[in-house]
């Protein structure tokens, strides 16, 4: 029956929750089903509730919903934490022989499936495999062919030897058989498989993969949740392509290393989260004035200060738009899905070099910890183009020299972009500095040159507005008077909210804006619409403020800042409220 199944495994941090969830998600993906995962976790390594949730369907899934169908609960707390999402048809798999679950009784009409996970795991070769036993049980409950799980186990444990793989397969079988033999179950769940091939990855991995594809060869970073996965992805992979990763001593160092590599001619990047961005702010200005191409990924989390390190927020927009002292031309790109993390990163490298500016890729925790399935063609490397901008060589450098033969790295040009000479280029030696400088890169306090250089740098933004397609992505009902605007990771939830709203006869038109600076002018769009609602994961509506400023029009706001991403059903409700549409049922109640 249910094509769209929501599944979770939860317990204490250290219980292997992550790998259990990942094994199942991978099995589903390889069985040709779409997957969308999310995580509940606290900022600690051991202890504390943690869960890995998998939503899966034969059709694409782009967000999480408030519903759990199958829950593997290793602790009672797991059930408590998810009570709101459980329903009468939910099945809770637990181990009644474990002291912490011995008195457990499934609430309401729910079905408690008591499986001796630990005991069966020991039979298969070790208690550590109790989660795998649970996965076997889950396969049985959801009519998912256990052979598909086998492949995933091979992938996970293959490097640990054949016997480990065999033991894990056996553990899964024991779980499955136990349910078959002890319970006469008929559940509403059936996980069909298809012939499709999907890949499963998260936003940080997509950023790292995009970077390599785009020719990034140098990465310097300092560990911080939720950006660290970018570095761990690149380490060990970028080297295969002649690159390198340096774990710096702090973010100040990381961004300066990246800057050095960029000046040496490498495509270079760093990634961090809010607190790290704060530390990088001083150098951000240097990158812009020295006109160095650099990509900075900010994987946002809840702020300010250390805030909630493991929780979602889109709170760094103002910082990305305005951060750094003085006035700084820049690009701010916001991918809206895991696959877009890849493509926007590729684009970021091209923009950085074409315009010789810093480029922010504003990702967030929701995308960083979400794994999503895609047909591999979505990442077709043949579509990746590399444009290095105005690089000069020995032959073309003459054009850019002054009377005495000095290269002009900051030449005043119509489009605001100067030539670049990589170190080693003959006759190209020059310096650049964070001080205001002349065309040769030398310090100046000349009032005229100051204005010329400032205007030149700002002209890059005008040029980009002319040359780049900055349009938002549009979906929903294009004739609707209800305009919803969003940026970043909310897009998936919005896509699904549209369908839910349609069921209630509410139509909306959505603009998802990936270019936050320079950004498209939405004045006409706003004038055409009756109501405009801006959706974002922050408390004050930073993007809404910006749009009101751009368009001189008031907008409605839907904000979420409790640390959890928007869910499709919840968002649909909030949108109705913002649009002044009240449910009749609620009115009667």
């Amino acid at each position, binding site marked *: 029956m249910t094509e769209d199944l929501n599944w979770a495994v939860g317990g204490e941090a250290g219980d292997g929750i992550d790998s259990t969830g990942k094994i199942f998600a991978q099995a589903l993906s390889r069985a040709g089903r779409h997957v969308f995962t999310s995580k509940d976790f606290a900022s600690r390594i051991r202890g504390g509730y943690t869960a890995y949730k998998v939503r899966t369907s034969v059709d694409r899934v782009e967000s999480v919903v408030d519903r759990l169908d199958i829950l593997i609960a290793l602790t009672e707390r797991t059930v408590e934490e998810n009570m709101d999402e459980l329903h009468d048809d939910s099945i809770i798999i637990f181990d009644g022989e474990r002291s912490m679950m011995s008195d457990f009784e499934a609430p309401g009409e729910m079905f408690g499936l008591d499986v001796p996970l630990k005991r069966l795991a020991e039979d298969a070769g070790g208690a550590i495999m109790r989660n795998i036993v649970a996965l076997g049980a889950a396969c049985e409950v959801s009519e998912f062919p256990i052979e598909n799980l086998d492949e995933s186990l091979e992938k996970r444990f293959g490097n640990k030897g054949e016997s480990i793989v065999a033991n894990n397969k056996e553990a899964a079988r024991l779980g499955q058989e136990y349910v078959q033999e002890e319970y006469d179950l008929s559940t509403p769940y059936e996980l069909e498989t298809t012939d499709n091939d999907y890949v499963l990855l998260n936003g940080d991995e997509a950023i790292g993969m995009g970077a390599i594809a785009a020719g990034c060869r140098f990465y310097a970073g300092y560990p911080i949740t939720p950006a660290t996965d970018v570095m761990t992805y690149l380490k060990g992979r970028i080297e295969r392509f002649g690159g390198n990763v340096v774990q710096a001593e702090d973010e100040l160092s990381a961004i300066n290393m990246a800057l050095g590599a960029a000046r040496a001619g490498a495509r270079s990047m760093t990634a961090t989260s809010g607190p790290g961005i704060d530390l990088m702010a001083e150098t951000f200005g240097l990158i812009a004035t020295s006109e160095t191409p650099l990509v900075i990924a900010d994987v946002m989390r809840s702020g300010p200060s250390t805030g909630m390190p493991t929780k979602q927020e889109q709170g760094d927009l103002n910082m990305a738009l305005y951060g750094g002292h003085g006035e700084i031309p820049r690009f701010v790109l916001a991918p809206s899905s895991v696959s877009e993390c890849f493509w926007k990163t590729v684009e970021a490298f091209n923009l950085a070099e074409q315009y010789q500016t810093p480029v922010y890729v504003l990702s967030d925790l929701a995308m960083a910890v979400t794994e999503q399935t895609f047909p*591999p063609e979505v990442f077709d490397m043949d579509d990746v183009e590399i444009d290095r901008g105005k690089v000069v060589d020995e032959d073309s450098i003459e054009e850019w020299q002054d009377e005495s033969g000095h290269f002009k790295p900051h030449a005043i040009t119509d489009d605001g972009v100067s030539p670049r000479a990589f170190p080693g280029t003959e006759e*190209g030696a020059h310096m650049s500095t964070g001080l205001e400088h002349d065309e040769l890169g030398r310090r100046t306090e000349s009032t005229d040159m100051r204005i010329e250089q400032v205007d030149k740098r700002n002209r890059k933004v005008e040029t980009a507005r002319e040359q780049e397609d900055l349009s938002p992505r549009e979906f929903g009902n294009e004739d609707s008077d209800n305009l919803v605007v969003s940026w970043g990771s909310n897009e998936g939830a919005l896509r699904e909210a549209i369908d839910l709203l349609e069921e209630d006869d509410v139509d909306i038109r959505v603009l998802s804006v990936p270019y936050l600076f320079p950004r498209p002018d939405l004045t006409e769009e706003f004038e055409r619409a009756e109501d405009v609602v801006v959706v974002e994961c922050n408390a004050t509506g930073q993007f809404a403020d910006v749009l009101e400023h751009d368009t001189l029009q008031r907008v409605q706001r839907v904000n979420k800042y409790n640390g959890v991403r928007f869910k499709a059903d919840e968002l649909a409700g909030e949108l109705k409220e913002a649009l002044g549409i009240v449910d009749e049922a609620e009115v009667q109640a």
Partner: protein
Amino acid sequence: MSSDNVRFVDFKSDKQPTWCPGCGDFGTMNGMMKALAQTGNTPDDTFVVAGIGCSGKIGTYMHSYALHGVHGRALPVGTGVKMANPDLEVMVAGGDGDGYSIGAGHFVHAVRRNVDMTYVVMDNRIYGLTKGQFSPTSREDFETSTSPDGTHQQPINPLALAMAAGGSFIAQSFSSDAQRHAEIVQKAVEHDGFGFVNVFSPCVTFNDVDTYDYFRDSLVDVGDSDHDPTDYDAAKEKILDRETEYQGVLYQDESSTPYNELEGATENMADIEESPPEEAMDLVREFY
């Protein structure tokens, strides 16, 4: 420019230094340029990174590929440059405030990382550019605008700091002993790894204690004795000696391998194709 006919003046820019007449930084810079020329480098294959301070202005007065960065962060920039293109000769310069105060963290880690580059600190034991506040190498009783009755803080011993961090080349020189200073910097450039030279580079405007005369009278040259820089214990003894200040190469580990080599950073990373490499699709397949 071929490396055969490079002279040290080729590393000079046509910008006239705005240092105070008599500033030690003139001599420090000349020595650096000589060292670069004598080691066969050209301005086109040299990258100079400078910090902030009077000392940091050096990038402006030298002719090469160069970046004048933000206060204290020159060493990470140099690290990035060298990792990205190991063919370049990378020289990083800054002041004692730049390197041992705001940049102290980076200093320790750059030493420990042992990237193959040269770090020259123009140590005048004062903040020059901000007009005479005490610096991390100022003496405890040194009176300045921000320490009217002394700093009440121990000065940092940069050589000891470098040694503690596992430095592979630790040297000290005096800008006015031109010949010797150039020779010491040259050894640092030739060193395979992080070549660190603390240069006494007197500030004639704000420091009337650590003067030319003071250094001329007190410096002891380790080259005049039978000091063996490869002898760790002998080096340690001299570096920790509170009574005497030395010039010369105090310590050198000739067998250390630079970080960039250990990490396999041997290619110029600027050379990339116009499209992703053939094998790039493998990156996607890993996610099956």
